[in-house]
C-alpha cells in the first residue's frame, strides 16, 4: 500500500497529513518528506495521522526522529488524529507520554 502525504507550510509551521499504512515498505517516504523539514528553521511540525490505520516500528522510528529534531532545535513536534489502532501501538511501546499527542 502506498502512502499519501500532503504537506502545507505556513510561516514557521508545517502540517503533514498522512494517509495509508506506515510500514517498513512505506516509512522511507515519510522520512524523506520529513527530512527537509528537520533541516529547515521551522518552529513547529504537526503530523496528522487520522488516515493511518496501521503503523509498525519503522513508522514510529521515523516519528522518533521528530523527537530528536524537537530536542535539538526546541521546535514543537506534534502528532494528532491517532486512530484507535495506532494509539494502541504507541501505548504498547510506552511512547504515548513521550510524544506531544493531540486529539
Amino acid at each position, binding site marked *: 500500500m502506498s502512502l499519501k502525504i500532503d504537506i502545507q507550510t505556513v510561516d514557521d509551521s508545517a502540517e503533514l497529513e498522512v494517509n495509508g499504512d506506515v*510500514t*517498513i*515498505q512505506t516509512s522511507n517516504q515519510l522520512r524523506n518528506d520529513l527530512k527537509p523539514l528537520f533541516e529547515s528553521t521551522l518552529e513547529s511540525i504537526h503530523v496528522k495521522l487520522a488516515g493511518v*490505520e*496501521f503503523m*509498525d*516500528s*519503522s513508522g*514510529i*522510528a*521515523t516519528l*522518533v*526522529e521528530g*523527537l*530528536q529534531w524537537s*530536542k535539538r532545535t526546541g521546535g514543537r513536534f506534534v502528532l494528532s488524529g491517532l486512530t*484507535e*489502532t495506532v494509539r*494502541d*501501538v504507541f501505548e*504498547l*511501546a*510506552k*511512547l504515548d507520554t*513521550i510524544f506531544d499527542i493531540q486529539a
Partner: protein
Amino acid sequence: MGDSRLNAKESLMSIHLSGCKEGLQALQKLAKDTCAEACLDKIQLNRIALALDELFANIHAHGYANNGGEIDCSARWIESEDKQCRLEMILRDYAPTIKDIKLCKGVCPDTLKEHPVAGGLGMNLIHATTEIFEHSPLVDGNQWRLIFNVKQKKEDK
C-alpha cells in the same frame, strides 16, 4: 515444546515464504484468514498483524541481511486449562542461528524521552503484543513461537 498447559486444538494451516514484500503480505493474510472466524476486535487483529510484521522484518533485515530467505509459518488455535482462547504462530527461518536471544533486546522506552533513538522498537512491540514469545536455536536456523491470548467479541445477533 513450551508450556505444557497448552494443548493443540486444531492445526489451521502452514505456509512457506520467501522474499520481503510478498512474504509479509502472505504472512499477514495467514493471520487474517486464521482470525477471520474468530470474531476478534480491531485492536487484537492489529496486534497480531503488528507482531508478525515486526518479527518478519527482523528476520528479513537481520537474519537474511535484506537478501531474502526462506521462512516457514504455521498457525493454530490452542486451548488451555483456563479455557482462554489462544492463537499460536510458529515461524521458522534458515538464517544464521542466534545463540543468545537476549542480545536482541530492544530499546528501553523509559530512556526515549531524554535520549530518543530511532530503532530497536520492534522487539519491544513483539513482547508487548504476545503472551509468550520464545526463540529456539536450531542447527540450521531459528524457530520463533508467538502465543496471543485473544478475547472474542460478542457477535451481533
